C-alpha cells in the first residue's frame, strides 16, 4: 500500500485525433476528471506509464439538445456529472437522468467526475448507466480515423471492461428524445446515503389505454454489467397494467440478474431487492405517467 503515485508521463493533447493516437487503454490511459483513475493509481490497481488528459481538448464539455437531430440530448466527454444534473434541458427533458445523478451525493465526485468517465469505469454499480439504459442512450466512440456509435447496453462487457478498444475514446453520449407521455423512476438501495448502490433500478414507461406502450427496465449492481430486463419489459407490453402485472414484471426482472455477495451486500438480498425495487419503480413511474388516475398519459 502506498501514499505516492508511481512516476508517469503526462500528456495534454489538444484534439481527439492526437489523444486517440496516444491512449491504448493499458500503459497509456485517458484521464477525464481523474476521480477513478488517480485513486486506482495510488492503490496500484492501475499503473499507467502515460496519463493522457482530455481536459485541454476543446468542444467536449457540452450538454445540449440538438433541435435538428430529433431533439436528442448530447453529453460531451468532459461534461461533469454536476453539469448534467443541473442542466435545465436535462431536468426538464430527461428528469430520470437528473434523478439518477442526484442519488450520487458526493459533491466533490460530481464536480470533478464526468458522466462519460463514470461509464468508462465499467462498473456494474454505476447509477448513471441504468438511467441511460432506460432512456435508450447511445455512446459515440472515436478511433484512429473513424467513429462508431453503439447502444449503451452494448458498452458494458464485464466488470471493469467496456467496448472501448485501444486507441479509442468516447466522445459523446446521445440520449434520444423521450417517448411521448413516458415517465421514469430511479430507485437505489445503499448502506448510507453516500454509498455505491447495493442494487439500483431505472424504469421508463408510457401507457396507452391501460397497457404499457413503452417499457424499459434497467438494473445495476446485480450482474457483471448493468442489465436490461427484456423479458419483464415484454411482459409489461403484453399484459394489462395492474399491481399484479408490476409484481410479475418484477419477478421476471429478477430472473435477468446474476448478483454476487461482496462487502456491500449478499447475492440473496440483491436478488430479492430487484423484485422490490422494480415493482416499486414501475408503480411510481406508472403513477407519474398518469395511468393510476385513469388517464392514458398521452398528454403528460
Amino acid at each position, binding site marked *: *500500500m502506498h*501514499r505516492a503515485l508511481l512516476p508517469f508521463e503526462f500528456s495534454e493533447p489538444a484534439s481527439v485525433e492526437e489523444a486517440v493516437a496516444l491512449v491504448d487503454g493499458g500503459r497509456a490511459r485517458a484521464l477525464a476528471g481523474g476521480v477513478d483513475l488517480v485513486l486506482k493509481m495510488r492503490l496500484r490497481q492501475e499503473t499507467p506509464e502515460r496519463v493522457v488528459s482530455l481536459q485541454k481538448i476543446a468542444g467536449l464539455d457540452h450538454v445540449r439538445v440538438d433541435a435538428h437531430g430529433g431533439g436528442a440530448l448530447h453529453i460531451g466527454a468532459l461534461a461533469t456529472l454536476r453539469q448534467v444534473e443541473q442542466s435545465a434541458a436535462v431536468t426538464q427533458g430527461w428528469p430520470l437522468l437528473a434523478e439518477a445523478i442526484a442519488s450520487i*451525493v458526493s459533491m466533490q465526485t460530481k464536480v470533478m467526475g464526468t458522466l462519460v468517465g463514470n461509464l468508462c469505469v465499467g462498473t456494474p454499480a454505476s447509477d448513471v448507466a441504468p438511467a441511460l439504459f432506460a432512456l435508450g442512450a447511445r455512446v459515440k466512440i472515436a478511433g484512429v480515423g473513424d467513429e462508431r456509435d453503439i447502444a449503451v447496453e452494448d458498452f458494458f462487457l464485464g466488470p471493469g471492461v467496456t467496448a472501448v478498444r485501444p486507441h479509442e475514446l468516447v466522445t459523446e453520449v446521445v440520449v434520444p428524445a423521450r417517448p411521448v407521455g413516458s415517465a421514469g423512476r430511479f430507485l437505489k*438501495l445503499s448502506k*448510507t446515503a453516500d*454509498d455505491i448502490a447495493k442494487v439500483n433500478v431505472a424504469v421508463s414507461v408510457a401507457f396507452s389505454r391501460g397497457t404499457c406502450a413503452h417499457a424499459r427496465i434497467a438494473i445495476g449492481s446485480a450482474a457483471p454489467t448493468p442489465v436490461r430486463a427484456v423479458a419483464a419489459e415484454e411482459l409489461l407490453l403484453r399484459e394489462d397494467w395492474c399491481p399484479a402485472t408490476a409484481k410479475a414484471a418484477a419477478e421476471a426482472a429478477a430472473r435477468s440478474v446474476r448478483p454476487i455477495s461482496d*462487502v456491500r*451486500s449478499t447475492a440473496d438480498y440483491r436478488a430479492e*431487492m430487484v423484485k422490490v425495487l422494480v415493482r416499486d419503480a414501475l408503480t411510481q413511474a406508472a403513477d407519474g405517467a398518469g395511468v393510476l388516475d385513469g388517464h392514458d398519459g398521452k398528454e403528460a
Partner: protein
Amino acid sequence: MTNEPHSEFSSVGKSLARPDVAAKATGAARFSADIALPGMLIGRILTSPHAHARIVAIDTSRAKALPGVAAVITHADVPKRGFTRSVMAEGLPPFAYETENLDQYILSDKARYIGDWVAAVAAVDLYVAERALDLIEVEYEVLPAVFDPEDALAPGAPVVHKGWKDNVAGVIEHPFNRGDLDAALASSAHVAEFSGRNSRQKQAHMEPDAAIASWDDKGRLTVWSPSQNAHLAKKAMGRRVFDIGEGNVRWITPAVGGGFGARLSFGVEPVAAMLAKVTGRPVKVLVTREEDFNGWNSRTEQRQTIRVGVGEAGEITAIEQDVLSDSGAYFSHSGTISAVNMQSTLGVMRSPVVRGKALMVYTNNPTASGMRGYGNPEGSFILQQALDIAAEKCGMDPVDFRLKNARGPGEPSMWEPQAITTCALPECIRRGAVAIGWDQKWHGWGAGKEGRYRRGVGMSIMTHASGAGGFLLEHSTAVMKLDEDGTASLSVSPCEMGQGILGVLAQIAAEGAGLRYEDVRTVTGDTDVTLFDIGTHASRSTYAIGNAALDAARKVKAIVVERAARMLGVESEGLDVRDGRVFAVADSSVGVSVAEVAHAGIYEYGTDARHIMATGKHQSVMHCPNFQAGFAEIEVDVETGVIKVLKLVIAHDIGRAINPLTVEGCLEGGAAQGLGYALTEDLVIDKGTGKVVSDSFATYKMLSALDMPEVEVILVEEPDPTGPFGAKGVGETGITNVAPAIANALYDAAGVRVHSLPITPEKVLEALRAHGAGA
C-alpha cells in the same frame, strides 16, 4: 435542550466558544504530519501480505542501495524487548499489569496478521521511501492461520505466538462475582437469555497515524505524535520499548485529529524512534488509510451471552455474563476492555448474584484495541436486549422494569467497593420517555404491528465512569500562573482531540480563580512542561483534570485575595474575585483588578515579590459514575429490511454541564458514531485469507449528515459533590445506548432480534423470514 445559564457563574454553564475552534476551522492548526524539522527523513513501513508466516530471510540490499535511502531496518535491528501497544496499561496497578502480555516488538520476526510490520525505511522523501519498500525482498514460510476465536480455541489450531501452548491470551474473572448463580437461576421465576456479538468498529479518526522522532546529542528522545496519554506513552517508550528512563523522553502532542481510543495505543512512534536512532536524523513515519484499516486498532470483537434471572415481582435475582474476546494478533487492550465491559455491564443493575467471566483469544486477525465506550457499547448491546426479554417475560413495561432494578445513590457503583454519590438515572429515564413519546408509542408486548412500514420504540440505560479511580492510577496535577496583565496560563495534560476540553478546563479555571474565560490560556501538549496525568480516556478529563484545575485556580484566587487585601488595606475575608476584579462583597466599589495585583506581585522592588501561581491536584479512588438513558423510534420496511431511525433521545446525568454546547455536541457525535455502530460500520475480514475487505471509507461505511435522524439531547443536572462545580463525565457515553435502543425498537416494531452488529437490512430480512413475517 440547552439549560439556562447559571447566573451565579461567569463562565461555568455557558456555551462559550472553544479556544482552538478558529485554528481548526481555518486550517491553521498544525497536526503531527504537518511538522517538518531540519534534516528530517520520511519513514514508511513494509507490511506483511500473509496472515501468518515465518520470516525466513529479508534481503534489504537493493533497498539500501537506492539513492536517498538512509536506513532499512528489520526485526534483527530492534531491541529484543517485548511491550504492549496499550500505553494505557501503564496506569494499571502492578498486579494487573502482570497479566498484560508483552507480545509486541518494534518489528516482527513472524507475521501474525496481514499488515503486520516486517521492515521499515527512512529516506529523503516519501517517493524514495516507497520505492525502497518495493525493493525489500522477504522470503516467507506461510503458516496455517486462524481467523475465528472459537476455531482458535479448538485443539490443533495454529498457535499464533511462538512458545505458547495454545491461543488463550488471558482469562478474567469479574472481581465482584458473588452468590450461587445456578441456585439463583434455578429458583428465579423467569430466566432471560441473549447472545450476540459486536462488530470491530474502527475509531476512524480523521487524522491518520503519524509520528516524528528525534534524538539529541545527549541521547534524549523527542516524539511528536497524536497520543491520548502522553505521560504514559513517555513511560512506555522510556521503560519498555527502550531502556533509557522516563527523563530521556519528551513527548509533544500537536493538534490531534480525533482519537476515540485509538491513541491510547502506540501507533508508529516506536518505529519512528528506531529509524531516528539508526539514522541520527529526525524521522517522520506516515501511514495510509488502508494500512490503518488493516492494522493495529479497532473495537474488540466480543461474543457474549448474558442471562438474567427475575423473581415474581420483576426483581432481578441474578446476572451472568460470558465474554469471548478476539484479541487479534497481539494482546493490546483486549484484557482491559473485557474487564471494563463486565464492570460497566454488570454494574448498572442491582442484582444479589453476579457472575462474569471473560476469555481473550489470539487469532491472525488485525490487532484490536480500545474504542470509545471501552466495553460498554459491546456489553450493553447484549444486556439491554436481555433486560427487555426479561421484562417481557414478567409482562412489565421496559421503562418500569429498568426503574425498578437500576442501581441508585448509596448502592455500589460499577467498581463495587465504591458507593454511588449522585444518580439522576430515574430522571433521565422519565424525561427521555416523555421526549420519545413512550406512553403513546409503546403499545405493550406483542403489539402485533401490520403493514410494510412498522414503527417501534426501544430504550437502553447505562452507567459509565467519570475517571479511572479504583481501577487505574488516577491523579492529575495542574499548574496555574498569573501573568502581569492578569491573564493566566493553565498547564494541564488532557488530549484535545476535538472534544473541546481546552475550553472546558479554561472555563473551570476562570470560574475558580475569578478570571474572565478569555483571559485563561490552556497550555498543554508537552511533557516537559505539563505535570503528570494519565491522559484522556475513561471520560475523565472534565472531572479529574477539571478538579485539579479548580484546585489550582482556587489557590490562585486565595493568593490574589490575600495580596489585594494588603493593597486595599482591608481584611481578606470580605473580598471576592470575579471576572478579573477583586472587590469587597459589602461594597463592590472597593476593589482592584487582578491585573494590578498580578503586576504588583512581579514588579515588586522590595522583598515581597511573587509570581502568583499554584499547583492543584486531583487524586481519587472513586470514579464518580455517570448515568444515561437512551431511546429510539424507528420505522422498519419489512420488504427491504431497511431501518429508518426517526428519532434518538439521549438523556444524560451530567452533574453540571460546564459548557452545554460542548456536552450536546459530544452526545450528538456519540449518537452518530453509535448509529454507525448499530447500522452500518463493519470491519469485514475475509474468512479465508484474513484480509480486511472494508479497508477504505468507500467500503467501511460511516454515516454522514444525510443519514442522521433528529437527536434530542437532554442534560439532567444534579451536581455531584465530588466533581468540579458538580460536573461528571460524558465523553464516551453518547455511543453506548444507541444500538441496544434500536435493537429493542426493532423488536417492538417487527418482533425480531438480530444477534450481531451492525443490524443490516440483510440480517433484518433474514430474521423476518425466520420469524415468518414480512414479505
